């Protein structure tokens, strides 16, 4: 099993040539995967601004890493490192939200810019219409995960279902919404 890099101090680089090689490899990795990484993090954090910050932090961590072998491992490390950092940030987000009191409009600033040609109002209608068409349990599981930020295990407990079932509901919901939003997305 591969372990993700932790917050340990950077290992000493004995060989300056190897260190230079590692920095170069990490830089290449980033230029190849940065946009995929930011998209991944935006889904996790619901904020593209925070996603960019975390991606940058992951880059720094990767540079501190003792060079592992193989570019595909490095790539997995990158996403796992970013995922850990995102999880830490979610925890502090949750703390902040508890203190601020979650209000009616708490997710406004997390909205991505709507697709060109669709107004924000149209986008909201499309989303609500797509969610409305989901079977109730499927809709419940998806809303609890996507909009309330509950982990799969918590949703399963709330619904008194197995985690496997909740996963299946959310997957089905995603696939269905993709079709609906693709169909309504280019109307205007």
């Amino acid at each position, binding site marked *: 099993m591969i*372990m993700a890099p932790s917050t340990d101090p950077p290992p000493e680089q004995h060989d300056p040539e190897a260190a230079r090689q590692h920095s170069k490899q990490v830089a290449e990795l980033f230029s190849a995967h940065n946009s995929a990484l930011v998209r991944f993090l935006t*889904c996790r954090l619901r904020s593209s601004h925070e996603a960019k910050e975390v991606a940058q932090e992951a880059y720094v961590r990767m540079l501190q890493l003792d060079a592992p072998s193989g570019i595909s491992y490095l790539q997995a490390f990158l996403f796992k490192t970013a995922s850990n950092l995102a999880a830490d940030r979610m925890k502090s987000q949750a703390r902040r939200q508890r203190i601020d009191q979650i*209000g009616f409009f708490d997710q406004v600033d997390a909205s991505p810019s709507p697709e060109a040609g669709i107004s924000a109002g149209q986008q909201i209608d499309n989303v609500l219409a797509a969610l409305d068409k989901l079977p109730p349990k499927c809709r419940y599981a998806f809303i609890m995960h996507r909009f309330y930020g509950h982990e799969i295990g918590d949703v399963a407990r709330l619904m008194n279902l197995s985690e496997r079932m909740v996963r299946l509901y959310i997957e*089905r919901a*995603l696939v*269905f919404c993709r079709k609906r939003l693709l169909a309504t997305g280019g109307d205007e």
Partner: protein
Amino acid sequence: MSARTHVDDAARWFLRLQDSGTDARVFLEWQRWMNDSAAHRAAYAEIEETYLQLNIPHRPPLPSDQELAADDYDGSVPVEEWHGATANPAIGSPAPVRTMRYALAAGVAAMAVAAGMFWQWNAHHAQYETYAYSTPAGERQEFVLPEGSRITLDAGSVLNVELTSERRTLVLTQGEGYFKVSKDAKRPFTVLAGNTLVRAVGTAFNVRRSANRTVVAVTEGKVEVTSSPPEPPPAAGSLRDSAASHDARERRLTIQLKAGEAVSDMGEGHFGALTQAEAALATSWLDGRRQYRKEPLRYVLADIGRYSGRRIEIADDSTGELQFTGTLMLDSSDSWLKALAIALPVTIVETPNGALSVARDPDR
């Protein structure tokens, strides 16, 4: 059952990567899958884009208990096929032959009910209001809902509220609240806490959710309380899940409570009655103190956790079952644990991860 598509696989990968505990090995397998073909990468990008587009400035309404109970979708086919089987005209495309067979197998009557509810859902769409409230450790909040009900939410509690023209649905996921319900016979007021559902028209009652137990105490008027027994762990095969939940629905138990009465629900499908004296203590927290009479320590510690914001671990069941009788003043919650260690034969130590561990002291 239809064949899995790249998009189905992409959704599965996407969801696995969303978990905060995902192993690096999963990322490695995901990258292999992504590198396999451009079709995989395109499907993944579409799912990711869908997730990002599904973002609106407020939380969408959750389906009602009745809708959830009437829902027979078990995830075994894609949602469109389920719509095809329910003959919902909103989706349009004719159902393929294999979904028609599915419809016959699953029972046409039940599906007609589900479709009818969708229509109602859409018709009243504009009248939704949803709110989410949460209180930090040690802080209580009072608020008034737009329809006039007053709620006092105790420390460390989470409450979601959904108001429609037909019902007022509240979900207390943790903590404790006191509900003074504004009278509106047309819109039942329900609070769901764990396995316990409380229904009221115009009345006042307290709901306390701690560990596996919910305690409901009525101070004015009458409420109806329903307990749902836990479901057996799901057997292999997705169809079993819905069969099990059907059985569970039939085993629900409903009772009526009037002012001065209280019950506890351990989530096992039956109630325990509290004495009048115990019922009278249920709302003592509104006056700035918590009074307990022969209360198992685990529930006292759950309350202290909500006030202090610290994670409290109980060493074993025999510690959790120790009984506490006494009063804790809410303005001095810091000294509570010290007081407990004096009143009961327990020791309290701080664990390396910052939690407080409470254990029975064998020497006392």
